[in-house]
């Protein structure tokens, strides 16, 4: 099973980890770049099943960034799955939606997502939302 892991070694303080569930490689690469520069470590699941497996096996992350359209299991289905895991119940979820799936936003918020960003997105806005939900990393905050 392909399961990418991209973690930057912590220098001063341990970096908060964010789970990014995104099947589009280019989008994920950009997200990883932005989040790592923003002071976070990133774990990646490239489809719904990988995400389910990660959520079942790793410790809860500071935030889940979740694409709506995913292979095998949609982002909306994943929200339900994540919210059923006792340890993950309170982990904030930021949805990534495209213009065409904006109607899914209401469903996602109903299911338990905390916020959403529409693609194409403004990197600063995305990072601001991430900081708000995951907490600003200590190194940056200082």
């Amino acid at each position, binding site marked *: 099973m392909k399961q990418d892991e991209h973690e930057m070694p912590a220098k001063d303080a341990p970096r908060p980890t964010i789970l990014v569930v995104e099947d589009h490689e280019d989008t994920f*690469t950009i997200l990883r*770049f*932005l989040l790592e520069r923003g002071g976070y470590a990133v774990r990646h699941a490239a489809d719904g099943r990988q995400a389910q497996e990660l959520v079942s096996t790793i410790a809860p992350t500071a935030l889940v960034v979740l694409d709506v359209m995913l292979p095998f299991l949609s982002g909306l289905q994943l929200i339900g799955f994540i919210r059923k895991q006792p340890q993950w119940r309170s982990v904030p979820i930021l949805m990534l939606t495209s213009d065409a799936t904006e109607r899914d936003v209401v469903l996602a918020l109903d299911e338990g997502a905390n916020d959403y960003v529409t693609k194409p997105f403004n990197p600063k806005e995305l990072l601001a939302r991430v900081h708000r939900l995951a907490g600003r990393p200590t190194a940056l905050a200082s």
Partner: protein
Amino acid sequence: MVDTLILHWVWKTVFATGLFSMAVLVLILALRLGRRYHAFRRHAFRTQWHPLLSRGVIEDVPGLPPLARRDRYAFLELWVAFQESFTGESRERLNHLALRLGVDRTALRLSRGSRLSKRLVAMTALGYLRCPEAWDVLHNLIRHANPTLSLVAARALARIDGNRALPLLVPHFASRHDWPLTEVTQVLRETGSDLAAPMLGQTALTGSPEQAARLIRLIEAIRGVTALSLVREVLDAHPDDATIVPAALRLLGQCEDPRDLPRLRRYVRHANWIIRLQAAAALGKMGTMEDEDELIALLSDQHWWMRYRAAEGLSRLPQMTRQRLITIRARIDDEAIASVLDPWLGPPVDQVA
């Protein structure tokens, strides 16, 4: 003598077959090596430029490496993908980076080429770059018979200068049925609803009924409230047109301006059931309790969709309650007609905890 001749031919055949097999083998090896080299080049290109573009999205990148001529198209492809992933100042940063590398000239050259895929990428790039030198090339292409090429040209023009492009594009939006409405809507949204909607409305006033209906659907798609008065004029000029009236009624329902209620009420008894349907759907969004009797009457319409929309409209009326819907249902003798209200009644009372 014969044996020697046969041996000679056999030898020649074996030699030719061997030679042919060797040639095929060499060709296969060359193709495989070519593919591996291409993959290697592509990987090397992405390894170098993807991080630079990612960085360029959020900050200036000093000291860019030179961009090899053979990588220029690959760069444009990657750069366009980046442009389509971001909004805001990131797009300006990406433009600045592209201009430093001089890929605007590459895009201009490719937009005049013969390879469709390269032309499309180049034209998209010229639009994002807002390259004024590309205006004439793109303007000529909006009349092209290929719908993809012409629509990409239209989109690029709108990005370069929306104010200048829209008067040129709107007549094409009205008449080019090979341009999907969803794609045209994207172009209009990028130029801004307030700018686009009045132009669509003005063109609808002078166009054929079919064109007017298409333009009104576009106004609805971009939520062009500023064109509402123009659409009312179109509707009043073609009060029974089977294409214009449904499109206009949908728009009126979307805008929910109470001044349009008398117009909507005129259409709920129209002979054309599609017009009745849109009138009922719009009344469901903005009607008052005055419309209750009319909507109840429409529950007996011969068309199922009409009955469905009437029931939906009833359920949405202000001050409508579940109890009142139950009472209305009880007053209807025909069970087939009454049952159309059921989806809005929720579970039977005895099943509600």
